[in-house]
């Protein structure tokens, strides 16, 4: 598994497309000046913009790296040469997954540093009313990264049953949107006006809420922007949620991949 991980990580670093996506990070230095166009809450705005850029890059990377990883191996018939080695399919899959997860962590580290620098520059130029809590920013970046790693596991799950990249890519995009909106929809359903909806629709929405991961929990942007305290037991729960969810999805993916016919 370790070897598959290493080889695939090399592959990601040697792939121009993904390095190209990282070029988007050159926008970071523009953020302080763009934010200063707004006369109030300049630092708050720069934090918001920085997080938007960071999550956008991570989302692109997660979906395209994850969605094409296994698919490319199958499409280019690398699977024959690798599945013929004394590896279990599970080791093969987890090795590939780990490569992307570590890559996303490294990218988050680099982008996170850029984000901190950007916010620092802005906060010097336009001191905010509430001082920036740097720990919150770091935590927020970390949880965004975890969110996208979880999303990658879905691209793998879909890849194990799909013959094209269509399901892995678009299925995962769907999961992302549903997972991001699910908390709001769920809250809405609990409200009086939500209760008036047809029962079937309510049940479907509630079902999706429990099946699709709840990405809202990973979003600490508000805490980072307004320097609010991060509830420790809350993020502890989210971390646990992440681990349990990831283990379940990867186990399913490994199980399905082991049964997959590699033709």
């Amino acid at each position, binding site marked *: 598994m370790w070897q598959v991980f*290493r080889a695939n990580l*090399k592959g990601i670093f040697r792939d121009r497309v993904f390095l190209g996506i990282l070029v988007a990070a050159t926008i970071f230095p523009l953020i302080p000046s763009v934010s200063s166009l707004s006369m109030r809450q300049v630092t708050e705005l720069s934090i918001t913009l920085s997080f938007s850029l960071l999550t956008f890059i991570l989302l692109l990377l997660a979906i395209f790296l994850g969605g094409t990883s296994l698919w490319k191996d199958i499409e280019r*018939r690398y699977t*024959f*040469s690798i*599945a*013929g080695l*004394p590896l279990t399919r599970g080791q093969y899959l987890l090795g590939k997954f780990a490569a992307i997860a570590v890559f996303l962590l490294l990218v988050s580290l680099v982008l996170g540093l850029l984000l901190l620098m950007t916010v620092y520059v802005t906060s010097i130029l336009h001191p905010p009313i509430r001082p920036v809590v740097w720990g919150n920013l770091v935590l927020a970046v970390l949880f965004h990264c975890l969110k996208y790693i979880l999303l990658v596991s879905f691209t793998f799950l879909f890849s194990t049953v799909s013959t094209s990249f269509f399901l892995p890519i678009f299925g995962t995009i769907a999961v992302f949107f549903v997972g991001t909106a699910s908390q709001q929809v769920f809250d809405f359903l609990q409200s009086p006006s939500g209760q008036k909806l047809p029962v079937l629709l309510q049940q479907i929405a509630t079902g999706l809420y429990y099946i699709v991961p709840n990405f809202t929990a990973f979003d600490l942007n508000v805490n980072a922007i307004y320097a609010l305290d991060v509830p420790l037991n809350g993020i502890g729960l989210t971390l646990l949620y992440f681990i349990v969810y990831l283990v379940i999805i990867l186990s399913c993916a490994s199980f399905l991949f082991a*049964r997959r016919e590699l033709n």
Partner: protein
Amino acid sequence: MNVIEIENLSKTFRGKRRALVQALQSMSLTIDQGETFGFLGPNGAGKSTTIKIIMGLIRPTTGIARLMGMDASHSAARAKVGFLPENPAFYDFLTAEEYLRFVARIFGLSGKALNQQLERVLSLLDLQEARRRPIRGYSKGMVQRLGLAQALIHDPEVLILDEPMSGLDPVGRALVKQVLLELRSQGKTIFFSTHITSDVEVICDRVGVIVKGKMQAIERVEDVLLRQTSGYDIHVCHPRTGLHKTVFSEAKTLPEIIVSSRDEGFEVIKLEPRRQNLESFFLDIVKSNHE
């Protein structure tokens, strides 16, 4: 121990629009340790399908496939096996050297032993010059040779090769033939599929012929060749007139014909067995299946 055991194997593919393709039909085969087995069959006969099942890439519809005494789906069964897939493709962003190291480490090699094996297979398959170039830029024949190199890097007991000669130039073919003969003399078990009957003749102990998913014949190569010797071509020359002549004789009448040519004043310059080689044996089986 039986290296490969196949019992009553069938494989049905579900193609487009639910059409069923019966790629293998109740096939059975046993390969002993130390044996060299050539697997012959026309295009689409089911050779690659059989090999994929043995390597655990696909599962049989019915029947059992065992490798090294274990069910073919076990990854541990492949620990002492070198495998070359049909038209192989390898992580093309790596160089040959990186890829070989990757494979070697998965087989548990490291340190000095790994480096030794790496040098050995690189020079064995004439990849020394290209070793630091990305596989992306390799020609078909170079990829094929890399395929053999990665199958040999851990000095495996068993080799399973799907068309090892495909895509190679005459020099490469001769080289691979030499390598296979060398492995055979070391007592390795070799199972390979091919279309080239003459390679089977030179390399193999046994041959199996598969047509339309059914094993039609399994024979010792020696037996086939002996049975197929139909007679001899006798080349003679008259020393005084310089007249050249070729006479055909069956095995039984050979001594008489030689004596009678001598009596006519001819000298025998060459004696050639006229073999109906493995090719005709193979073609006969394929033909009889078409009828």
